[in-house]
């Protein structure tokens, strides 16, 4: 499942030989993230974010498991147990800030990872399965973060849970029973908090499982690269270790600096003040908003305001869910044979001047106070969002004349690929 020139693991002493025979785990690691995995030599820093996302998950699990030792999932004491963590548990404040900001940085990294995939069309054959599993991971992390945010049982926890579970109420006929069933009551209360805690604890481990599948399927075709041209010969690749371990190590350092600066100097900047008020079912906050990473989707939800055949609320729910679910069919929508946005002049324009501003506008509107301006802006951006993925992308390849691609990765890096020109290595990569 790798390239023929991949280095082979050879156990160095009797002990590792013995382990390799009984359980070839070191071999697996060697082939997955060691010298045995040949990787295109021209990856940019946009290829750092997969490893960083994995790091974030580990970080959330480690901080989360310790938080869970001190947290009490009971509506009567959840808020004060969180304050107990902040005040009385040794370094509890650091754990909690690390976990809360860790969620934000997790999403930041995931978004950059996804944008990389969108710009370089990493979702295209032969990498569809990697992409599909990635969307599953994203959905799992969203669900986890949503339920995690409910746990401190502040005002935004409560009202966020109420609004989001209320969305199920928009489903005709069965909506309300489903909502009551999900919450274990008419409004979020102890039953809801308990099951959210249980699932918030469980889902990261499910995510870890799907990540293993994600990487497994990645190792069949190997990583794509900024040219989008597939690996042709050994000179196109370098072994993952030490080349990309070193580069990822540096990337991790930069990431940690940004993340730790946030944890220690601006830990509440990304949060909402209302979540330091204990949940109160009788006092509705002036502006119920989710965490920043949900803002674009929240804006889509609020953009549908007109009862067109179906109630507006139902359109909003359908629109919001579709905006992510449509990523599942992306590999079959974009038919351009060229992967990388570098060589697609029209695609590139729509990406930078259409999609990116559209998402930023949605993000802004989703977090802002509702006003005529934010509603109208989010409606235009929502329209563009669906047009971009569902109409423009499928049609684009018929109009676009791609720019000439380099013959190989080596040529793109070195300016010429002597071996390739000489036809020395023409065996296809498997």
């Amino acid at each position, binding site marked *: 499942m790798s390239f023929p020139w991949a280095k082979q693991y050879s156990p160095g002493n009797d002990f590792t030989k013995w382990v390799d025979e009984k359980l070839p785990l070191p071999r697996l690691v060697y082939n997955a993230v060691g010298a045995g995995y040949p990787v295109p030599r021209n990856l940019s820093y946009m290829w750092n974010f997969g490893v960083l996302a994995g790091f974030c998950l580990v970080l959330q699990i480690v901080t989360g498991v310790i938080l869970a030792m001190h947290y009490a999932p009971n509506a009567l004491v959840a808020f004060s147990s969180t304050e107990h963590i902040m005040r009385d548990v040794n370094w509890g404040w650091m754990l909690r800030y690390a976990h809360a900001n860790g969620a934000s940085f997790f999403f930041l990294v995931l978004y950059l990872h996804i944008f990389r995939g969108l710009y370089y069309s990493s979702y295209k054959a032969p990498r569809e399965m990697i992409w599909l599993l990635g969307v599953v991971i994203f959905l799992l992390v969203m669900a986890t973060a949503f339920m995690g945010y409910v746990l401190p049982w502040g005002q935004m926890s409560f009202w966020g849970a109420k609004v989001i579970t209320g969305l199920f109420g928009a489903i005709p006929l069965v909506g309300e029973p489903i909502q009551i069933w999900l919450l274990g009551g008419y409004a979020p209360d102890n039953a809801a908090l308990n099951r959210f805690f249980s699932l918030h604890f469980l889902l990261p481990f499910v995510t870890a499982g799907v990540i293993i599948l994600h990487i497994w399927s990645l190792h069949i075709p190997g990583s794509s690269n900024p040219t989008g041209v597939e690996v042709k010969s050994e000179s196109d690749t370098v072994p993952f270790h030490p080349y990309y371990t070193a580069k990822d190590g540096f990337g991790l*350092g930069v990431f940690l600096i940004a993340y730790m600066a946030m944890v220690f100097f601006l830990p509440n900047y990304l949060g909402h003040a209302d979540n330091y008020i204990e949940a109160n079912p009788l006092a509705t906050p002036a502006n119920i908003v989710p965490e920043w990473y949900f803002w674009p989707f929240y804006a889509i939800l609020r953009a549908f305001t007109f009862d067109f055949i179906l109630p507006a609320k139902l359109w909003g729910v359908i629109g919001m869910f579709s905006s992510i679910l449509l990523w599942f069919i992306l590999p079959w929508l974009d038919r351009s044979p060229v992967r990388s946005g570098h060589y697609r002049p029209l695609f590139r324009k729509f990406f930078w001047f259409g999609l990116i501003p559209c998402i930023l506008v949605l993000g802004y509107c989703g977090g802002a106070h509702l006003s005529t301006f934010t509603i109208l802006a989010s409606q235009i951006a929502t329209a563009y969002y669906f047009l971009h993925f569902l*109409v423009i992308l499928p049609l684009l390849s018929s109009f676009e004349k791609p720019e000439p691609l380099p013959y190989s990765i080596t040529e793109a890096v070195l300016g010429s690929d002597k071996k390739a020109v000489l036809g020395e290595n023409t065996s296809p990569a498997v």
Partner: protein
Amino acid sequence: MVRLLAIGAGLLFTLVVMISFVADAYNAATTDTPETAEYVFHEEARSPDGGWSFNGPLGKWDIAQLQRGYKVYKEVCSACHGMKFVAFRNLADLGYTENQIRAEAATWQVPGIDPATGEATMRAAEPTDYIPSPYPNDVAAAAANNNAIPPDLSLITKARHHGTDYVYSLLSGYQPIPNELKAEFPEFKTPAGLYYNPYFQYLNIAMAPPLTSSGQVTYDDDTESTIPQMAEDVTAFLTWSAEPTLVKRKQTGWPVLIFLLFATILAWMAKQQIWSAVKPAKRKD
């Protein structure tokens, strides 16, 4: 086939959201929403002159200020507001010794149980007790305050946007209704039992101005207890109570960042070293 369906769905979504757009734009153009006094006359929170000692990456508590702030809280605010997350033992952060804390706690009364009869009584507080609420429950609190419940103050500076500046501004911001407001919004009134304060979200707040005159609290140091000074001091105390670990957090952050910076530079150098063999010299096209 997938593409045809997708295009259909895409156009449908666009159509529906654009209908919403037209309907909303039409509504916005035909009905004008009148500006509200709450919107026009609400003022943004401001810092005191000289800012806060604990702000900024090198911020530190001003211990004397926290002690003065505690005194303001105790003598003024505690008549209406409790602090359920602050225990007397936490006052050690303010520089008090164990004995001082024991004596200080004993000046407060908390609910207790009569050891002889098991009946509810009041007893002197101990260092492990938390600062009590003056009211037995929310109903009593609302009944005594014109139907508004004075919130617990433990977390108040974190529970408001720009909370530290906000609390300071609120406490020192009571004033008569400005004439421009009366001119622009003649129907705006401050009902009996409410007080005009432009920093409060709804402009009329149910808290009577708590700080009313210089010298209201007698400071133990030679700081003059003017209204802005008391507002500043009690706000500093409330910032401490909302996050007692604030200064420790910043002080921990520095070594962490310096270490990471060092490690990242090393990682950069290692990466350059490793890649130097395969990185081509700059392309000359």
